[in-house]
């Protein structure tokens, strides 16, 4: 493949994998079960990124099931979202290139809620930091924190260099975190954000969280991965590899209190009276979150823009059980394929946002210069019906 006998795409892919293997001292390449590719929004790729993908798509094909991160717009309802036509044209070309490479257009940061569900011990090559940390921690699969091009290279070659989190020795906790009980996705994401910021890297082992839900684990991971370079965590009694380390005495220990969480939320948040947009779904919402939203609304119609971002798979589930229709009747809009972080937000005229995700707050402020207030789902719903 490296010599080019399989074409340009295979050669470039192998060149990337061999270079990474060299940098990290990997002994060999191992086969992977799936890949998840980031770098889909035209807003980030630009014209040159698009050209590169088109060139790869001329003779390239992925060898393993491969899913795609969100792009810059809902593919069906981009006009309604307010996405300009010139952007939409370019975005569709990006998606076509990925389709030609044989990639499923799942367009979600939660591939594990859309059919790409690796098992315990499976080697995969995923990009998208919140999906990487979920795959490693909650599913017990094994992936390094890939970038878009390196995950794509692994998908085309069907292999990845054996180093880092693919190896047992790098999956052990490096820090014990004593945490308070968590009661919402917002608290979970704030805990993640704080610990990520304090650690920077490494593998935290959480104690004291109580009975956390799958959605809270999703929020915790997204927080850890956005403020730090963290790609794996364990939760005592909950995550699949935690029992291996239950007797372990971490050399260092950090305590996080409820007060710390409140401070962390304040740090990322400012007070907003009249937000342009209220949204949930960073990372993309699950069917459970949609149900909770519906229950909290209690039949009340919303009085301002409330958007939910979810995968098309989750939206289809909601439609099947009649939940989507009920939410839409109350004025809630469920968008797919995109999220506020990767959409051309300023061009949609959105400058102030209320949401329940620390990750979203961090990126919206830093990349888009948007003003953000963080609130738990319960309070955010009350703002929306006002």
């Amino acid at each position, binding site marked *: 493949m490296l010599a080019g006998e399989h074409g340009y795409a295979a050669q470039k892919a192998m060149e990337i994998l061999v270079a*990474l293997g060299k940098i990290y001292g990997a002994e060999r390449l191992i086969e992977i079960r799936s890949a998840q590719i980031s770098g889909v929004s035209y807003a980030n790729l630009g014209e040159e990124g698009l050209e*590169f993908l088109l060139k790869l798509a001329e003779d390239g094909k992925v060898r393993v099931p491969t899913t795609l991160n969100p792009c810059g717009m809902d593919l069906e309802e981009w006009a309604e979202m307010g996405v300009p036509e010139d952007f939409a044209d370019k975005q569709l070309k990006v998606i076509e290139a990925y389709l030609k490479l044989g990639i499923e257009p799942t367009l979600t940061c939660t591939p594990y809620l859309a059919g790409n569900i690796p098992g315990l011990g499976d080697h995969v090559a995923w990009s998208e930091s919140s999906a990487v940390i979920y795959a490693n921690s909650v599913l017990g699969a094994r992936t390094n924190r890939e*970038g878009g091009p390196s995950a794509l290279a692994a998908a085309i070659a069907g292999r990845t260099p054996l180093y880092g989190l693919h190896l047992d020795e790098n999956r052990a906790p490096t820090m014990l975190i004593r945490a308070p009980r968590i009661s919402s996705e917002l608290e979970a994401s704030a805990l993640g954000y704080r610990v990520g910021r304090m650690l920077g890297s490494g593998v935290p082992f959480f104690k004291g969280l109580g009975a956390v839900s799958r959605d809270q684990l999703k929020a915790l991971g997204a927080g850890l991965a956005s403020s730090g370079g963290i790609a794996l965590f364990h939760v005592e009694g909950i995550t699949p590899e935690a029992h291996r380390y239950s007797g372990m005495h971490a050399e260092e220990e950090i305590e996080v209190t409820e007060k710390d969480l409140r401070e962390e939320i304040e740090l990322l948040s400012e007070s907003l009276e009249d937000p342009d947009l209220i949204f949930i779904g960073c990372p993309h919402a699950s069917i459970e979150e949609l149900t909770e939203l519906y229950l909290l609304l209690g039949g009340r119609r919303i009085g301002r823009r409330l958007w939910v971002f979810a995968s098309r798979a989750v939206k289809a589930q909601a439609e099947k059980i009649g939940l989507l229709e009920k939410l839409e009747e109350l004025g809630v809009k469920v968008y797919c394929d995109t999220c506020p972080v990767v959409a051309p937000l300023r061009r949609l005229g959105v400058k102030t946002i209320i949401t329940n995700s620390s990750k979203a707050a961090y990126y919206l402020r830093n990349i888009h210069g948007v003003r953000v207030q963080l609130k738990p789902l319960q309070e955010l719903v009350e703002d929306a019906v006002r």
Partner: protein
Amino acid sequence: MRIVLEGRVIREGRAEGEALATRQPISFYGGVDPETGRIIERGHELEGEVIADKILVFPYGKGSTVGSYILLRLRRRGLAPKAIVNQRCEPIIAVGAIIAEIPCVDEVDISVISRGDIVKVEGARVEVWKRRQSP
């Protein structure tokens, strides 16, 4: 004075040019302007310098993985460095050099290379002609 260094090939190639050297890591996403090739990171010791057609010498890359695509953008616009010499290459720079087809070598003792030296990169070999010290 000529110094010959032996490194490790990240992306094969040969190039010769004037060194733009720094001891600080470089972030291509947000730190280099893809429209002009100018380093725009606030407070960076090379802030304001243009990297186009230089042999860019720095310890390693930092920041977002989108940085790989920025190297590609620079190359397509004719604003890329002629070659990259790193102390310890990491994935952002390695992937960027490969997709943008910029010769790249690492595991080089970059402390012996100064700004303005003439540097020739040929595979793993890095030849440095020291600029004459000003009197």
